[in-house]
């Protein structure tokens, strides 16, 4: 039995909290432990191989689940391939991004910055848990 569970049960035994409160605390503890178990331990900084995106959406009533694993090598290759896009096509892409409110200038993304970008991504962890919708983004 973990220390946290023991503390909650001790508080219940000492009538510091009632049964409903103990149940809520235990449920929250289980969710936290579950989320901690799911969080991967990175091999080491810069050794991540995949970008993982998981979405579990129960809020819309459709119970949608998305699990995408993208090799970081694909990001490297895609950025290098993108550097070959002709200038006029790249300008059109930048305009299209601007219209969508996405301020990304592809001219500034150079292959020599890829490793820095990937290293930054390796430290990225996003956890969103909102009313039946869970979104996780991390590198593994």
């Amino acid at each position, binding site marked *: 039995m973990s220390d946290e569970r023991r503390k909650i049960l001790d508080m219940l035994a000492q009538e510091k909290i009632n049964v409903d409160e103990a149940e809520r605390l235990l449920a929250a503890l289980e969710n936290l432990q579950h989320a901690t178990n799911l969080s991967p331990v990175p091999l080491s900084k810069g050794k991540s191989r995949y970008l993982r995106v998981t979405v579990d959406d129960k809020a819309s009533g459709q119970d949608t689940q998305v699990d*995408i*694993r993208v*090799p970081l090598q694909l990001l490297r*290759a895609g950025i290098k*391939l993108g550097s070959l896009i002709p200038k006029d096509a790249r300008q059109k892409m930048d305009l299209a991004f601007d219209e969508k409110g996405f301020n990304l200038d592809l001219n500034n993304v150079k292959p020599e910055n890829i490793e820095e970008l990937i290293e930054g991504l390796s430290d990225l962890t996003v956890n969103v848990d909102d009313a039946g919708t869970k979104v996780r983004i991390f590198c593994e």
Partner: protein
Amino acid sequence: MILPPAVMRLYIAEGGKKKISIWLPIIIAWPLILALLIILAPIGIIASYIYFRSIRTALLLGPRILTTICALRGLKVNVADADSKVRIYFA
């Protein structure tokens, strides 16, 4: 060195029924594809130069496309909702 993906798995189901289920051992096709690429490389380079008007682009386009295809190894996409499922996997 990254090897190209050996197997591609595509699965699409809708309304509980399997629509598409493909398991492709693309590793078998790679030697043939490589031979075709070597044969067609000069034509591809010339066509790329005519279209892009850049020697650098013409020479780098083919290898970078190949690198991108090789980097697909490990890509996994799973999307499922109440009515449909889509799974794409390159191994």
